[in-house]
């Protein structure tokens, strides 16, 4: 994959020639949709963006109606984002085998391409996962990113995975996913090598999951003092978009230990690789 990034853009420009990619976003997203769009276009595919608020399934067109209509127009890859967990699975079960579904985030369930680009970024910076301690910090309960990161870290043999959040934002039996849960940020960050912050969606919190943004930043915001508890060469990640001063202090976000911009850059390459793999096209000279 690194070769994909190093080579000039033009070398891959025909891999997805004559393919159609539909970005089917039932939930708003600028960043993920844009990176998928760029990834598809760099591979030579026709990319169509459909940002459509989904009607309740009881009225109007259902998810599957929408997909079948588009599928009839010879779509090769659907990139699907939805606010309900399991939508990509549902679609994948109801399209013919030659149509590929990429999950670009489903409810609280999974955001696999985000986790893959995160893993790629960590490997670039840190190498072997088996020696590394990871901490995922923030709204674990609602986070599809956290669930996919945990799954990916398990597969890659991480030494230790911690999740850090107040009890209101920790899902039940999270330990069953192979992580240790911490409600104390200072304790949770001690000696970790990679700090993976999550975006806090304040509008979801209803004043009950967390009392206020001030209190949250006081207890769970990542600032320089807290980061000093982690390993001396610890790195900081964030899937974006960041809430500066809510979950992460600006000086940390912009510091040399932050991998946040690498994540964005790698996001395009990783998504190009996923699309090319799916349709069985590899650049010449790669194994």
């Amino acid at each position, binding site marked *: 994959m690194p070769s994909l990034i190093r080579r000039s853009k033009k070398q891959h420009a025909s891999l997805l020639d004559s393919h159609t990619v539909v970005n089917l976003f039932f939930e708003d997203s600028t960043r993920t949709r844009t990176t998928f769009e760029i990834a598809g276009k760099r591979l030579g595919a026709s990319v169509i963006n459909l940002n459509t608020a989904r009607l309740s399934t009881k009225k109007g067109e259902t998810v599957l109606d929408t997909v079948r209509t588009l599928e009839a127009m010879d779509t090769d890859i659907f990139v699907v984002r*939805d606010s*309900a*967990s399991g939508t990509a699975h*549902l679609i994948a079960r*109801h399209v013919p085998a030659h149509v590929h579904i990429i999950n670009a985030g489903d*409810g609280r369930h999974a955001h696999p391409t985000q986790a893959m680009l995160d893993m790629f970024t960590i490997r670039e910076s840190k190498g072997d996962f088996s020696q590394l301690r990871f901490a995922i910090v923030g709204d674990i309960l609602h986070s599809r990113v956290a*669930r996919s990161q945990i799954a990916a870290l398990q597969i890659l043999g991480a030494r230790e995975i911690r999740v850090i959040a107040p009890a209101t934002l920790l*899902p*039940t039996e999270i330990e*069953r996913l192979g992580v240790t849960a911490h409600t104390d940020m200072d304790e949770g960050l001690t000696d970790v090598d990679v700090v993976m912050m999550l975006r806090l969606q304040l509008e979801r919190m209803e004043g009950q999951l967390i009392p206020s943004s001030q209190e949250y930043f006081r207890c769970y915001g990542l600032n320089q003092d807290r980061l000093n508890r982690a390993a001396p060469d610890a790195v900081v990640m964030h899937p974006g978009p960041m809430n500066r001063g809510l979950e992460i202090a600006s000086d940390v976000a912009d510091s040399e230990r932050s991998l946040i911009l690498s994540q964005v850059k790698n996001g395009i390459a990783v998504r190009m690789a996923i699309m090319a793999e799916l349709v069985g096209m590899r650049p010449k000279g790669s194994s």
Partner: protein
Amino acid sequence: MKIKICNGRVIDPTSGEDQIRDIYIADGVIADPQKAQQAFSEDREIDATGQVVCPGLIDLQARLREPGEEHKATLQSELAAAISAGVTSVCVPPDTNPTIDTPAMVHMVRQRGRRIQKARVYPLGALTVGLNGERLTDMAALKEAGCTAVSNGDRIIDNTLVIRRAMQYASTFNLTVFLTPLDHWLKGNGCVHEGEVSTRLGLPAVPEAAEVVALARDLALIETTGVRAHITQISCARSVEKIREAKQRGLNVTAAVSAHHLHLSEQDIGDFDTRYHVMPPLRSLADRDALRDGVASGVIDAICSDHQPHGLDAKLAPFSESASGIAGIETLLPLTVKLAHEGAISLTDAIARVTTHPARILGIDVGTLTPGAPADVCVFDPTAERLIDVSQFVSQGKNHPFDGKTLPGVIAHTFVAGIEVVN
């Protein structure tokens, strides 16, 4: 019409009987076997060798969708489904559209049921007008129209004072109150058990406490009002515990569980399989086992189908947006027999949970093979197995997680009031 059913294994939980003998039916009722042996000129003889002969099943909770949702199912289709599966009496919650909250609605549903001439229908009267949880219904009139019990169906009453007064008022007229414990705040928009699976799949969860909190509240009110109450469905170990305690303290309370909760758990949901979307949700394996123990020990009195037929589209949606429920009436007997096959309970006790006990809970005179009782009889092969194929369901609902699986218990004959309705 006189019918003799020969050589069957007669299981009548009312008397505890389990032996090979003949059953006699005359003029729609069970005839006294002693008298019949001396002089009985049957019009028809049925050989039931190798078959179980037991009272027709009584399903304490089945949604037949009529009136209001005839696009999903009708009384005609679902009562035919019932008898095809040995279910001769069906208790219908009042959450139809319009709701069953007036004597006229009770008469309408009962009359429609009678005209169809399949299984018997027992509509529950609404506890509150329109099930809105505010004003009490005219319960004395509902009783006169034929209701033996009242319920708020699937609508939750939040106002504790209303529940208490409804219980007091129902007890005035010796009506049983059917309650479905669920705290609507704790349930929220949850669709699966709060546990490992909800965490892994990221699905909104219903904590066990949503049921236990409401059940504890209801039991406290049952105790102070002295009403006779039936808990329509429980789903977790703690609820079994609560019912056990309540019974030990002498409360006049019974409880049921759905057949699917005795065989499935949250683990079966796999990757968002919407056929397993039910409410209350399928809970942990430990909960399932506690429910089985509860049924075996008698803490749980009855097993119901919680039949909920849906159209095809209802399950073709993301899990949280799919309709909950299983079209389970045709598997009530097979899943109950399966419990006995698996050694969880004796066959006699299992049959009691779907015949005699539900009859007692509803206060109706069926569910027994006692001479003089209406001849609602089910004859089935307890060892034969049947492939569950939803396309072969009589019910209009094809939503069933056991599709493609094999279950024991194959119906040979069903009689309602001495008339053979299935052969």
